[in-house]
């Protein structure tokens, strides 16, 4: 069996302690929570660190889903399973339940965390696409205090984030608006596989049932999970219809940059970007109209 190279194990019991340890060890250290991306890379010796700082004890502090007026705050150590099981979260953002059903597998979901998913910054990662769709912002804590960045700023490229050495992602915030609906869809070669393409949609309707605002986030079609502003611009003010969704899908298809790989051809992925954009918009609008959020 593959095994990681030697390192020192340390455990943080508070966020302050984690920040202090990260400050002390700098880029020779890495935080570990679920470990499902980090440990396999270390076993392959593609990544080696002198220190691993176990932050699972921070679950009391950073494992939470707080649905508040105008905002949902989710702690970075909230596990996939908690996101999937939360009826309250699904009530506001059903996209989470859609997505969590198709992320990895149930046993991995028992361990993997929201923060770990975002910090891995894999372009195929589903929660990143969800966060992009929902216009989330990320709260990052470091020795100098706390700062908040948008998803667009958070992901700087494949496997690269705004979290600097000595910093820790603590929380992700999602603005809540009236008459919203959201949905997520993923095409995968097999359950538990990374996405061939995934799409998330969030839609907000006005009093007349027109689209007040909409956002689409895609995974696995470019260097990052991508939000597509042109889709939002196109949909705003429109009466929801298949024609409008199709137009949005066409924009998605031409706005993304998929690559041909084992999961599929670039052409197919473009097609899926369109198809899944249409499907998720359709569901999101229906949910918004039914008041399901």
């Amino acid at each position, binding site marked *: *069996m593959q095994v990681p190279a030697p390192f020192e194990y340390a455990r943080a019991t508070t966020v302050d302690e984690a920040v202090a340890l990260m400050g002390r060890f700098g880029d020779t250290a890495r935080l570990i929570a679920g470990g499902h991306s980090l440990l396999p890379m270390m076993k392959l*010796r593609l990544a080696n660190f002198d220190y691993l700082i176990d932050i699972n004890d921070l679950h009391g502090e950073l494992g939470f889903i707080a649905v508040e007026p105008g905002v949902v705050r989710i702690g970075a150590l909230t596990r996939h399973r908690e996101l999937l099981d939360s009826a309250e979260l699904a009530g506001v953002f059903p996209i989470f339940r859609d997505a969590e059903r198709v992320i990895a597998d149930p046993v991995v979901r028992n361990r993997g965390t929201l923060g770990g998913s975002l910090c891995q910054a894999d372009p195929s990662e589903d929660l990143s696409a969800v966060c992009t769709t929902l216009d989330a912002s990320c709260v990052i804590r470091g020795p100098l205090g706390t700062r908040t960045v948008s998803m667009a700023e958070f992901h700087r490229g494949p496997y690269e984030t705004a979290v600097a050495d000595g910093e820790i992602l603590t929380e992700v915030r999602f603005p809540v608006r009236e008459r919203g609906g959201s949905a997520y869809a993923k095409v995968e070669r*097999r359950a538990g596989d990374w996405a061939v393409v995934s799409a998330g949609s969030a839609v907000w309707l006005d009093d007349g049932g027109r689209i007040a605002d909409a956002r689409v986030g895609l995974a696995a079609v470019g260097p990052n999970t991508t939000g597509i502003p042109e889709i939002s611009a196109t949909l705003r003010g429109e009466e929801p219809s298949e024609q409008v969704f199709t137009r949005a899908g066409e924009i998605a298809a031409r706005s993304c940059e998929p690559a041909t790989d084992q999961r*599929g051809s670039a052409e*197919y992925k473009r097609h899926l970007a369109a198809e899944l954009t249409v499907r998720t918009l359709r569901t999101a609008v229906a949910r918004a109209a039914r008041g399901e959020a």
Partner: protein
Amino acid sequence: MTDTRQRSFEDNDQKPMGFGRMLRKEDPRFVRGRGRYTDDVQLPGMLHLAILRSPFAHARIVSVDTSAAAALPEVKAVITGADLAGLGLAWMPTLSGDVQAVLATDKVRFQGQEVAFVVATDRYVARDALELIDVEYDVLDPVIDVRQALAEGAPLIRDDLDGKTDNHCFDWETGDAGATAAVFAKADVVVSQDLVYPRVHPAPMETCGSVADFDPVEGRLKLWSTTQAPHAHRTLYAMVAGIPEHKIQVISPDLGGGFGNKVPIYPGYVCSIVGSIVTGKPVKWMEDRSENLISTGFARDYIMRGEIAATRDGKILAIRTNVLADHGAFNGTAAPVKYPAGFFGVFTGSYDIEAAYCSMTAVYTNKAPGGVAYACSFRITEAVYLVERIVDCLAYELDMDPAALRLKNFIQPDQFPYMSKTGWEYDSGDYEPTMRLAMELAGYDELRKEQAEKRTRGELMGIGISFFTEAVGAGPRKHMDILGLGMADGCELRVHPTGKAVVRLSVQTQGQGHETTFAQIIAEEIGIAPADIDVVHGDTDNTPFGLGTYGSRSTPVSGAAAALVARKVRDKARLIASSMLEVSVADLEWEKGSFHVKGDPGTAVTIQDIAMRAHGAGDLPEGLEGGLEAQICYNPSNLTYPHGAYICVVDVDPGTAVVKVRRFIAVDDCGTRINPMIIEGQVHGGLTDGVGMALMEMISFDEDGNCLGASLMDYLIPTALEVPDWETGFTVTPSPHHPIGAKGVGESATVGSPPAIVNAVVDALKPYGVRHADMPLTPSRVWDAMRGTAQPPI
């Protein structure tokens, strides 16, 4: 859960004295976590071995510097190809009579090839030490595309072979080229189709490994290893390593699946032996998953052109095929010597035709060696895929129902034994009832109606049929041997004084349930309860010689041996009974478990009474030795030919091209059924393999020869969510030459299911004018097929 299933639970409580549904004797240890697999073996002072593998597909080794690794205090040995060359152990024979490097000396010829190994006190440190070995490579152009292997100027892979100037491995042909050409020339309809059976991997959940314990004082080697053929391995180790065969004990403990992956001898096993000899300590080697996927026995990798000739009304006249076979860097195919393409010659399938011909060219490439694995019945998987796909192509061209076309062309019951046009004598079969039962279970006509209705709405539903005939149970020793070892199997049965028994087998279970079924065979024959029969296997010191478990051969060969050895014991018991009851042998009647005097059932002796008498005080009949035991070596007179009819129903999402297997109906005929529960389990597993191969599994390579399926993240195996709840049925056509009429079944479903699934997907895509699509039918590839832009996967 349906009522029928609830009933089947109750059936489980039966404890048959012989054949019938019976719970497995081995299960209590497995559910408690008390199975004992190779990696569970821990010996005092045991060291751990790790192998350094080539990152390149084709490169010359310039130098290997092991000094830094050897300097680690925990490292006890670092061995290179040069070191092995000094011992004459750098190369070893493959099961096909080629040679394969144990550790590379001159060149590496595939990515993942063994270059050096480390033995250390700790498995983690052994891995660390690999990082410290410095190998300088001179990278060469690799040969990855099998079609380019024979091209002018292609890089030469096997320059180790004297006089070798190209990458040609072998040519092979079967059937009658001239007669076939004549039939094709006069046929109304000829359909030709190129087909690829991609490279796939058995990937048993337990990887390969071994623990070698060499005793230098006694000169004795004890080797626990993940082998499906412990006796054959022992003989080969004796021939290669020079350790006398009687001083080698090979133990194959519980195996976490095999599927043919654990038939060959891998360099790692030899390395662990060398490691133990060099260090004087027990040495354990266990592959990681990547090593398993990139270096051990793959399967398939055939590029085939299939041609079929028929009359306009659907009478199949002839089948012809040309095959380009990729054998990787070394010909490591595990097939009988006279069958370099395994049993691919049964490609004429279940149909009575006038002529057939196959020509094949096999080549070397810079890929891992292997070829016969993954429950393939010695390449019958490829053969069945070819014939069942090409028959569907014919149905497409004739606009004929694929079930009707098959029914029209079956070999008829009165034609058995049937000699095929490629020289295979099918022992027995009655195909139409099997096909009809599958159609009935499926509700075939209703499915076609549903499909027609759905098509009017643009919904894509497909119904795929496959009808296979297998040839399993290798085999008659006048035809079949592996490296000179005849494919017979021994069996010993000993009845103890108290009437309990032990049966010793030469075959080895990898999950097939031998400890149960073989006890049932003995029980059926001599009437001792299965619970009272210990089944010993997987240990060369404690079992008779035989060739092991693969190619669905355990029941056809070893199962026959078990039945016959029990009959030998029964014959002796009859003599003892006649003396106990003081009547002549002719006056005795056998009723399972006892002899009684004809016409007087009350005057009887049980097998237990007889066993005690055989070992006890008092005289035995004149000329009879004490004891109640026998042994046999069974040489099968023919293969057995199980068959089956499979029907698959799929739905394809027209928007995403995602395929969902909705239903799968499998009707198998494996002759006499020893334990229906186990047979059904074997079928279920094979069907799942079929879903894997048809929809997702493929070992592919980039142009540099990097394996792109090197982990279970990249090499996808079906989960519980990709497969339906299997629907099974059976018919029974006993084998006329097998003592209990049984045929092999272990690989039937792996062989038979892929074409059913592909046929279903292609059928679903019929509105798009699709006649063929190659595996694996991933969403992207299905989408290509719908758009008419499909390319072969290799």
